[in-house]
């Protein structure tokens, strides 16, 4: 499937990525080539095939994943904020949301 430079811009918007003109020119043909390659899957009739649920083994699927609903110790505010780029009064501060 052909992927145009404007498709790349639209995908980048969806993915919260800023793409330079150079990257747009580089990515468009590369992604088109990869998408064409993966489209070889269309050779296979999968109408009657159940989709896999991931890498889980039958034993993994049977394993009880939930735990008792009990309070567990957590990091706490100070540690959680320690590496924030812009912490303020116990919060994560971000630039204004509405522009």
């Amino acid at each position: 499937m052909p992927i145009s430079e404007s498709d790349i811009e639209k995908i980048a918007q969806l993915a919260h990525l800023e793409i330079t003109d150079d990257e747009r020119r580089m990515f468009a043909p590369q992604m088109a080539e990869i998408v064409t390659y993966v489209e070889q899957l269309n050779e296979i009739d999968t109408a009657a095939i159940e989709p896999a649920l991931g890498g889980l083994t039958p034993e993994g699927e049977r394993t009880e994943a939930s735990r008792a609903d009990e309070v567990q110790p957590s990091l706490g505010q100070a540690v959680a904020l320690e590496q924030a780029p812009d912490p303020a009064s116990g919060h994560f501060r971000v630039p204004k949301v509405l522009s």
Partner: protein
Amino acid sequence: MTTIAEKTEKLARGETSARTEVEAALNAAKKLNDELNAFLEIDRGGALKRADLIDEKTKAGETRALPGLNGIPIAIKDNICVRGMQTSCGSRILGPYKPPYNATAIDRLLDAGAVIIGKTNCDEFAMGSSNENSAFGPVKNPWDTSRVPGGSSGGSAAAVAAGIVPVALGSDTGGSVRQPASLCGVIGVKPTYGRVSRYGLVAFGSSLDQIGVFAQTAVDAATVLQVIAGRDTHDATTADVPVSDYLSESKRDIAGLRIGVSRTLLGEGLDTEVRAAIEKAIDAYRALGAQIVDVELPHAKYAIAVYYIIATAEASSNLARYDGVRYGFRAEEAPALREMYRKTRDEGFGAEVKRRIMLGTYVLSAGYYDAYYLKAQQVRTLIKNDFATAFANCDAVLTPTAPGPAFRFGEKVDDPLAMYLNDIYTVTANLAGIPGISVPCGLSTEGLPIGVQLLGPYWSEGLLFRLAHAYQQAHPLNAQAKVHA
């Protein structure tokens, strides 16, 4: 070569000390890093302090009860969280981020007495097959520094190949432990999905990711996997399946085991020297008493296509968390939130990570989900079924690990699809959830290592160690990397 088990016994008898072992590893890591760029952080202070503590306990007779890694230096891929050390994932967006907790695998290593000497370089967010995608420069292959070490766990593979550490941890989403193991001439094992906890492993493709082990020998890899394997309540995908005694299993005879070989997989696209080495490995197994049987994996040729839909889709979702809000890098001078996200991710991510996030976003976007993602999950079922059929007729499947030996830097960097095809033999195991191991099986005429891969049914790690150990006993590589401690 001294195994870990022999070393820990020597240590218990006072014939060596943790400090001696750890200091040697730290010195080698530092000395060789200019040439190899294998380590992003070396924790000399922390490692020596811990080594001294272990020596004190050993002297006081307090460590006898400890399982197998007492005083053993180990290197950890920089996408596995170790408290107090950096976890950059080879990316600018995390940079010197220091996780406030240990991965479960790390806690288990430390409980067993291992000493972490540093964090190893890797392709950014484990995306790559050559290490050229690290934001901090590529790792060099210790056998030939003009060539790639493979990826994405290239730093861990190089650290073991260069004799800096006996063992290292990596992660394997599509071959990121086995392929660099093959290119660097060491053992690399990817366990069954759900065998090792992924808690504290930075997520890339969550239905594919597993922590794996690098070692010079199968028995050392067995010793380490023994420690880190098993159910963990912090990772709901770990399975409640007993961990067998890998070390004693690895030493059992292999006579009578049936090894499946797919002739189709030894056809087109495979380097002639690799093909010859694989044929020799097949003969070697036959000579050791194994029975070679023909198997077919009819959907294996679609594995790369399936993988690059599923892995990129999962990555685009997992990497959405890097937004410059809670930790890591934030771009300056963004007037509003959306611009901040976009600038942070533009400046923080490298080209390959962006390409994969965009591919994943594309295949998951409205109108395309059924055509790509659903289709890929259906073909994934067919690949799982192929293995189930194959394992009804054999105990393990033998393939090359990589289509060729280590290539030169820059050779494939402008052609992402050619780079992806490096993973042709390894991605099937991640898609099916089965374990795999790469075993060094010879050198090319240029002196570059070649690896043979063995794939087994779910939970057959012990059997894979057994096959790998038997091969290594009969056919040791008898060569070491040019750059070596």
